[in-house]
């Protein structure tokens, strides 16, 4: 199977650690991906906020590249990119719309486009929890975590097809298999405030604050994320949220790949752990090699 890979702009900037840990984990799990050549930005929220056609043209160019490279599937770690890709593929089914998009492109977009998926979903589908547990060398026992998926991972459900849209459990199943204690986290699909951190800080601070506060109230050691923007809002902007809520959290916000990587025995530096603004250092000592070796 030819899995094409679209890292997304943030992978090369604000979420370099997500990219590092994703590559490391995929590698450890024996999943090979090919980064598509010459990809461009999906347009993110601003593009579709301005024009559906513009947004779809930006996405279509990437999908077209993947199709022409013969990809069976296109993976991306970023839910926002995925959402834009899926929406584009759906809209392109309408011949009129396709024509409008093609008018913006250098060459018409391929008729058949590869299906798109998130790295999270792909890992979930390709590696079952049992296998994951077998491959793990470090136990996550002692960690009390909450999984936070953000809003785009599962919405709109008819496009994203990701678990129960009100209560996805994939990260919980994975990390529980690795020994972590996963707390029920009702705000796991709430919105973090998206990109409004720049133009309208209170929107983001308030929403991220709620999420952080509930996680703190529940007694979580960390919030596990799968979206670069969510992670940035909860981590880099945690101080802003603390200010808004009038309370200190100090909650580390690692990517799920970073936690997976730790369990798989990958060195912290290879997972970019140092890039977390709120450090995870206090948690690392809790991790210990698995006591019960397989077949023992």
């Amino acid at each position, binding site marked *: 199977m030819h899995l094409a890979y679209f890292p997304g702009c943030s992978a090369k900037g604000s979420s370099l650690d997500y990219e590092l840990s994703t590559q490391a984990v995929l590698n450890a799990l024996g999943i090979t991906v090919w980064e598509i050549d010459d990809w461009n930005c999906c347009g993110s929220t601003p593009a579709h906020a301005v024009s559906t056609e513009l947004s779809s043209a930006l996405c279509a160019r990437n999908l077209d590249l993947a199709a022409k490279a013969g990809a069976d599937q296109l993976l991306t770690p970023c839910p926002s990119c995925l959402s834009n890709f899926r929406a584009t593929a759906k809209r392109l089914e309408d011949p009129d719309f396709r024509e409008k998009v093609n008018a913006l492109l250098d060459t018409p977009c391929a008729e058949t486009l590869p299906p798109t998926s998130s790295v999270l979903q792909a890992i979930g589908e390709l590696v079952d929890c049992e296998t994951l547990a077998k491959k793990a060398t470090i136990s996550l026992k002692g960690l009390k975590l909450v999984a936070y998926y953000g809003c785009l991972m599962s919405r709109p459900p008819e496009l994203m097809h990701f678990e*129960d*849209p*009100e*209560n996805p459990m994939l990260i919980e199943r994975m990390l529980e298999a690795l020994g972590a204690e996963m707390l*029920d986290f*009702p*705000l796991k699909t709430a919105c973090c405030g998206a990109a409004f951190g720049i133009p309208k800080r209170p929107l983001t601070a308030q929403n991220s604050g709620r999420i952080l506060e*509930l996680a*703190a*109230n*529940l*007694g979580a050691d960390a919030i596990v994320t799968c979206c670069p923007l969510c992670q940035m809002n909860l981590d880099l902007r945690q101080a802003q949220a603390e200010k808004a809520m009038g309370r200190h959290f100090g909650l580390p916000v690692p990517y799920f790949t970073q936690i997976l990587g730790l369990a798989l025995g990958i060195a912290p530096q290879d997972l970019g752990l140092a890039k977390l603004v709120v450090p995870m250092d206090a948690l690392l000592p809790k991790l210990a090699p698995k006591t019960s070796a397989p077949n023992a």
Partner: protein
Amino acid sequence: MRIGVFICHCGSNIAGTVDCARVASLAAGYPDVVYATYPMYTCAEPGQAAIEQAIHEHRLDGVVVASCSPRMHEPTFRKTVERAGLNPYMFEMANIREHVSWIGRDIEANTHKAAELVLLAVEKLRRNRPLYSREFPVTRRVLIIGGGVAGIQAALDCAEGGIPVVLVEREATIGGKMAKLDKTFPTVDCSACILGPKMVDVAQHPLITLYAHAEVEEISGYVGNFSVKIRKRATYVDWSKCTGCGTCMEKCPSKKATDRFNEGIATTTAITIAFPQAIPKKAVIAKDFCRQLSGKKCGVCAKVCPTGAIDYDMQDTFVTENVGSIVAATGYDLMDWTVYGQYGHGRYPDVISSLAYERLMNASGPTEGHILRPSDGREPKSIVFVQCVGSRDPSLNRPYCSGFCCMYTAKQAILTKDHIPDSQSYVFYMDIRAPGKMYDEFTRRAQEEYGTQYIRGRVSQIFPNGKGQLTVMGMDTLLGKPVEITADLVVLAVGIEASRGARELAEKLRISYDAYGFFMESHVKLKPVETNTAGVFLAGVCQGAKDIPASVAQGSAAAAKVLTLFARDCLASNPQIAHVDNKRCVGCGKCVRCCPFGAISTCTVRGEEKAEVIETMCQGCGLCTATCPQGAIQLAHATDDQILAEVDALCQI
């Protein structure tokens, strides 16, 4: 044949856009028409007299009236021709008002169309044959399915009217949903106190045979003569010996059985009597929870039972009852609210259904009437009620209003304040529907006297705040502001859905049901109790959402219908039914297979299989006629030849 045609002016209703005189003169040329005229008001007394006179004067043996819809006046004119000595079925109508004069203004086109419709009627009438009803005897017994308050009311009224009643109840006790309620609106009187005596009456009435823990398995027959096979599900307790003493319950070691009567807020024993006032007050073993029946060693109940009533080998048994009429009163179930992920999919113990809350408030409930949170047994101080959970929600295919939630929510808010005076209740609602007597006043009291905060808006999400309470995210659409409440307990006013198995029962009864499984009445306004299957009546929520007073009223109404039906010894059959031409029938059974009423059986005529129509069961739909390839089964009054003549009259003209 000698046919008379009457083209009605209907004042200017028809004559305004149809040239009636011209239609009459064209009709005069139609085959077999010997008389054609155009009266002013044909249905009026003089108009009818003119028909009678014409029949005598012109020796007519068939009459066509072109006027309004036959759905309006066909019965009227059939009586008219019958008075003049004709068979009432030697009559046809052409609808030149609703289908012609009222829907088009072009006189030329309308006149042409009216004339053609009259020709259709003439060609059909020429192929009509006199039809005669037959009389058949009725079995004067009634089956009532469902022992909720509607079924109980119907049973008692029928029995009081002298009609023997067979009452079948699926649960181990009658009483239905009402038996679970604490108090009833708008009077806040005790549900058990008003329902209890009626339940006892059922148990004691000599004319009522009660089958509890039983279900209707098969129904055959027709109005006046139904045969009903009833499955008595195994209780593993011989009820003829059980005295309801409750010793078995005390000793039963399996205490984790789901307590369905208490809506799952508590557990009970594997052998159980639903509640102290149960009728019949007999024990039943829940097979899934019984150790003995799950193959483990136990047998405690058998040892302690003073009358030796326990029978672990009991099997389902069947009885067949013959009745002349059936009342369906199967009630409703609460929809499965755990489909709402935003309310936690049922994983937060302090988010409960309204019916569970009734059990929490009920003195015979698991908390003996003290409102305590299921999670920690603490008394809640801040209680949020959320209305329309599973009602008016098209996204879950439940667009309908459940009717009574507004009222019981107000009641529960009032009772909450009574139970916990320092509590505060909040009600999220979309609209308050309180159209009954004293109803609106009641919801006002909840707000004015009991200080309940009513907030107009749906609740988007409920979740634990990590500090032992629940966060309720709602909206006050009146203020245009989001609202957040920290609650100790959330009560969901869960909407109703058709009772489990309602569709299957409808198919056994051969009645229709709507998209949601509620049974279809014959006419939504004028025949709300009847169904389209003669002899089958409806009572209570099985027909659509309603509260206790309305259910009781419909129960009585259904009983009245039964009594009316049984007021005569014999019933007249509908003569517009299918007939088999034995010469043509090859006995292939296609008609038997598709008859919606099971009204066709087979018989052997001179060694050959033939179809046979059971006259009293045939409702005259004609599906068989459309199915039979050799045209051997013909629906009287809508035969192939009649419809072919109509088609040909239209297409060859």
